[in-house]
């Protein structure tokens, strides 16, 4: 990269030259010094030594780029921040998943290879939680897609107060999970709750929704769908608005039925956005935690405990650090695979329709 500007001097290979702008050497030195410091010095000192080595390497790279790669220098702070805040912790936790370690024990991590993965993948409890999560994902995403779709159709038409109602319908999405959780807790509460009071008008008995597994599931799905259907609506609405009017006018001249108009004009326009909504909501629902935690704590028993809630218990309550990082990576892997599968099918579909 630097052949044009850095003169080759002497017989030394360029890599070994001691110059301020020799950033590859600086990086190699930083890695060697850091590893040596971590291995030989106590943590309090090695941390600072490694940090100083990293800063030196970074300084060398900046010196080399100064005045020549302005673009690179401008994004460098953002990349550095991303590395420190995201990539490094991510890599660190990936590393931890191959060790046996608990954050609240004064014991060093012990390397165990793939044992954690083997344990987690053969643990029937984890599979049970994954099944619970899958059921909730299918239910909540289906409800959100259907409701969001219908809402979008409603709001695609012009009617009085449409603007204001639209804002009102979008509000749940903007609330915090905690507020929604607390709200629905009261909504379902059998003594004070609106739902119970309403049912009691007809039956005379308080209605205890969260008593059964099915009820608790329904309660969670309803709350989550209430919160996120507007999101689906928003995306579908954007698709609906983008359909050119003349297509409908042409269809009207041809006396096409409503269904025909929908399948031939509307759906092709919104399909992409609908798929995007499905993708976003599936990924989010897979991580469902807040509403479950606030509404049922995973109860009755563990029948609504999602894998995220299970992960929270392992990581934050039990301090099983390496186990929980392992579960996290398995989840991450699952989501990536699902997303890619999904994208693959969508693309194949798109190609088929084009050809």
């Amino acid at each position, binding site marked *: 990269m630097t052949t044009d500007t850095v003169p080759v001097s002497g017989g030394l290979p360029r890599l070994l030259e001691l110059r301020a702008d020799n950033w590859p050497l600086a990086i190699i030195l930083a890695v060697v010094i850091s590893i040596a410091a971590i291995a030989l010095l106590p943590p309090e000192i090695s941390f600072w030594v490694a940090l100083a080595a990293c800063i030196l390497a970074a300084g060398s790279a900046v010196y080399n780029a100064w005045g020549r790669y302005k673009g690179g220098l401008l994004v460098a702070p953002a990349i550095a921040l991303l590395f420190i805040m995201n990539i490094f912790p991510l890599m660190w936790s990936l590393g931890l998943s191959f060790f046996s370690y608990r954050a*609240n024990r004064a014991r060093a991590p012990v390397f165990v290879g793939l044992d954690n993965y083997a344990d987690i993948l053969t643990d029937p409890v984890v599979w049970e939680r994954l099944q619970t999560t899958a059921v909730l994902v299918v239910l909540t995403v289906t409800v959100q897609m259907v409701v969001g779709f219908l809402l979008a159709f409603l709001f695609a038409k012009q009617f009085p107060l449409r603007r204001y109602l639209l804002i009102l319908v979008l509000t749940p999405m903007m609330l915090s999970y905690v507020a929604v959780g607390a709200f629905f807790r009261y909504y379902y509460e059998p003594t004070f709750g609106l739902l119970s009071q309403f049912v009691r008008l007809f039956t005379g008995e308080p209605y*205890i929704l969260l008593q059964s597994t099915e009820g608790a599931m329904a309660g969670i799905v309803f709350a989550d769908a209430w919160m996120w259907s507007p999101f689906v609506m928003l995306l579908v609405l954007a698709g609906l608005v983008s359909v050119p009017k003349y297509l409908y006018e042409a269809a009207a001249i041809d006396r096409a039925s409503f269904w025909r108009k929908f399948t031939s004009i509307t759906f092709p326009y919104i399909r992409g956005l609908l798929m995007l909504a499905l993708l976003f909501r599936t990924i989010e629902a897979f991580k469902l935690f807040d509403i479950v935690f606030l509404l049922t704590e*995973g*109860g009755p028993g563990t029948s609504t405990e999602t894998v995220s809630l299970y992960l929270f218990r392992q990581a934050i309550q039990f301090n099983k650090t390496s186990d929980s990082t392992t579960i996290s990576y398995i989840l991450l892997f699952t989501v990536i695979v699902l997303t890619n599968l999904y994208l693959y099918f969508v693309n194949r579909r798109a190609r088929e329709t084009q050809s």
Partner: protein
Amino acid sequence: MKLRIRLTLMTAGAAVVAGLGGAVPALAEDVTLSMAVPDWPPTRIMKDLFDKNYKAPSGNTVKLDIDFIPWPDYYTRLNTSLTSGENKYTMAVSDSQWLGAFIEAGYYRKINDLIDADPDLKATLADMHPAPLQAYATYPYKSDNYYGFPQMPDIYVNYYRTDVFCNEEEQKNFMAKYNEKLPCSPEEMDAIDWDMYEKFGEFFMRKKGEMLAGKVLDDDFYGIAYQAGKAYDFSTMQINAFIWQYGGNIWDETQAPTGHAEGVVNSPEAVKALEHYLKLTQYMPPVVKTGGMDIFKTDELFREGKVASNIEWIGFAESSINPETSKVADVVAFAQAPGLKVDGEIVRWANIGGQPFVIMTWANDTQIKEAVDFVKWWLSPEVQHQFAAQGGQSAIKSVYEDPKYVTYRPWNRTWAPGLDWQKDTWHIPEFFELLVQGQEQYDLAITGKQDAKTTLDNIAAFQEDLLSEAGHIED
């Protein structure tokens, strides 16, 4: 971690030597004690008393920098802070069950040296009731290793409504139905057992439109309530009481490593105890069937006037006598929590509540000295009386045995007799895993999904496995 402690100690030691060698008189310093505490009246009162009255005997300017954290998040927040290594807090008000987990991790400082070096502190601790002292300070439980000083000791008591219980009509009807007098005065209420409590449940369960104490009810009404929630320890604390009263036991850490969980946790006595606990829930507000009946919900139901009686921690009592927060403020009375009648005597074993102060291992010498002075100030009779006068409790005998003590608050009369019946749950580092699994199983029983025997068998099997793996049970 250990290394860091050693380094800290070395630095601290060097500082002391340097200080002595230099023989320079100590100058007044600004010292900040940062403390994590649960957000509720006992800690708010403490902060208030501190800000108004505290003067450090050392002459230093001591500032108490308190993080008030809501109860439901408290463990997770404190755990996260401690585990992250940020060393943010010098002290904390810790739940007693957490001792093992945080001591083994190297966060809570052992305080035996501080007690030995300070005759006043030693005398104060000697004057303390052994039940709270053991529960709040010792790890392993009931050993001689001390880690904490009581901040707010707590037990559960029976909150009840005199307008309902003392109503003549209700009295007459109760007598007609059960041929027994409906208790009205706190003394009469002290004498009840769980059978009588069940009768309250059956008798006072009324539908909307029926009469209660001469008034037509505008909503359903229930007789009794106690904690039966899924979160944290919101059923275990009451179930333990039943188990101990029946002569059963939870896994006993003082018997480790030979004491087992299997056969103890699911003994016939424990099964009977859990069946009794579950039987009473049929008379409670319907939220009990959802796993949502935690200590906050029972407190709310009582203050909203939906139940006649509630077994609740004293820590909540202040808000139930305050007309701004309670619809029953002018009619609430307090008695000892019911027990089980065995051979004519009422057995009242209960799970102690309340929290100790702890000092962190990373506190420096000045902070430790100021922390000890602060704790001594807090445990001094004068301040303990002020605390009690504002609704707190004291574990110090000379304070709670003072005739003035019972005059501060209506529930204080239950305090001294209640203390003798307190035991504590596990202090071991694995407590949270035991607790969560127990709560899940109890939740299945409370919501009617499985019977008491299956529940306790499942808990015993889980505990036997986990405790054997952790080395607490050896064959």
